[in-house]
């Protein structure tokens, strides 16, 4: 780890000023400290934002509002989360380990870096780590990589489970920075790699995530997160699917679906959603819709299995939404 200066701030104004001066925000630090130790990340100034009043979970009407500094474990166990958006609790619990969830913040979870092994391998080319150096994964070991949204420069997946649920639920993120405050869909927080994979999110310099807002929807009660991985817990997804269905009189009125482990960002499955609306919630409809999840998919040498696993996982996740009592 290279030497750095640690600055603790108590107000958002101080935090943003410190970040403008070149500081990097740190909250739980569960990704950043690890990558700093590996010298993949080399910040010279850290801004400790844990004292800012950005924790907590509240509701506004039926909207769930999650503070950026709320911890994963706290959000997963909160009665409002469980009552209004059980999908979020389920996705959170499927991510990381209890020790990490006790520390990792919601804002940090969204901004965590990719888990591509070459990102951490300092002697391998990686366009995220060293722009223009090349991508070792595309011609190398890419079993865990994306089949959707990859470019010739990067195919790393976004590792957050929470983000998959938030994208399915049309959650928005509220951010504050030198130019003031703005809100936008969580989905738009993440960039496609294109020719600039080192740019992973759309925050402006010194912008700080304040909170995440999850609108209420009739499908919220019948929502599940299914994560398929190499072991049954504490592992990143090979494929995951967040699915929510609102069914009325035997007809699907609303479908919300997003997938993790398959895209270079959490991937909203709009074609599959559209294929479900107006149909009966049965296996045939689910299978037909799930085939649409592969629109535009381009497997690499080692991840072709995801083109089979994704639709199967989606079908099962959709069935699970019907099993919620």
């Amino acid at each position: 780890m290279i030497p750095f200066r640690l600055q603790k701030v108590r107000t958002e104004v101080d935090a943003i000023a410190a970040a403008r001066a070149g500081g990097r925000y740190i909250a739980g630090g569960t990704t950043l400290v690890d990558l700093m130790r590996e010298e993949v990340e080399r910040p010279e100034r850290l801004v400790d934002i844990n004292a800012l009043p950005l924790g907590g979970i509240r509701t506004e009407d039926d909207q769930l509002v999650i503070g950026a500094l709320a911890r994963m474990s706290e959000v997963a166990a909160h009665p409002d989360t469980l009552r209004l958006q059980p999908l979020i609790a389920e996705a959170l619990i499927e991510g990381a380990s209890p020790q990490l969830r006790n520390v990792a913040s919601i804002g940090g979870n969204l901004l965590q870096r990719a888990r591509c092994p070459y990102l951490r391998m300092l002697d391998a080319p990686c366009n995220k780590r060293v722009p223009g150096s090349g991508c070792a994964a595309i011609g190398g070991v890419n079993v865990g990589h994306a089949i959707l949204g990859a470019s010739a420069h990067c195919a790393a997946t976004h590792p957050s489970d929470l983000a998959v649920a938030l994208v399915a639920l049309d959650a928005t993120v509220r951010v504050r920075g030198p130019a003031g405050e703005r809100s936008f869909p969580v989905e738009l927080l993440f960039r496609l790699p294109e020719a600039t994979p080192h740019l992973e999110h759309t925050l402006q310099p010194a912008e700080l995530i304040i909170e995440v807002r999850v609108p209420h929807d009739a499908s919220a009660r019948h929502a599940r997160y299914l994560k398929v991985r190499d072991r049954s817990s504490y592992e990143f997804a090979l494929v995951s699917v967040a699915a929510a269905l609102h069914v009325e009189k035997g007809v699907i009125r609303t479908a919300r679906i997003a997938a993790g482990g398959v895209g270079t960002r959490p991937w909203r499955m709009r074609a599959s959603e559209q294929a479900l609306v107006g149909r009966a919630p049965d296996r045939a409809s689910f299978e037909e819709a799930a085939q649409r999840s592969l629109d535009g998919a381009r497997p690499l040498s080692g991840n072709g299995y995801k083109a089979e696993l994704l639709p199967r996982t989606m079908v099962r996740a959709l069935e699970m939404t019907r099993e919620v009592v």
Partner: protein
Amino acid sequence: MKQPDTFDPGRHDAHSETATLLSRREFFRITSGALSMAAVPAGLAQTADGAAIDAVLPAHVQLTINGQTRSVDIDPRQSVLDVLREVLGLTGTKKGCNQGACGACTVLIDGKRVLSCLALAAMHDGASITTIEGLAQNDRLHPLQAAFVDHEAFQCGYCTPGQIMSGIGCIAEGHARSVDDIRFWMSGNICRCGAYPGIAAAVAEAAGRKEA
């Protein structure tokens, strides 16, 4: 960073003479402490490309560890784990992967189980930390320690302090209602000997004792 000379009790130069007079643990404690100090010349720190940084001075933190308040000067880069082991000599907490993947370094910070290898000590000024050394009351083991013995919940023992601290957190959180529940909520602690059945049984028994 320069590595300590290999500890070889068969050698008879002055260096190994010193070493053989010390326990193995003491030897590593002293050499690693000296090296970590040498690696951190206060006020003279530089980045790899040579740019001086103005204020990489030792940070001062106060930590309450197992009920005792300690004031320590640390480098901002030091983890809670390294402060426990190398500054304070509390070597019960183990360094496994040092990257947040294995759970061996689990301690309780302000009552919650966390990974001490990913916690920067400088960000924990004023924190209250419980380590494996803080569990037994004199000769009386903590109920979960006793259950680990009863169920032979370890083989080599290296992951055990982290397993026990994590198990205490797991029980306190209410996630020890069944063996399946325990296995899921203890999955952040890896045991390469594969003592999982004993670990799950020990946590289940201690959880039951607590409720009784």
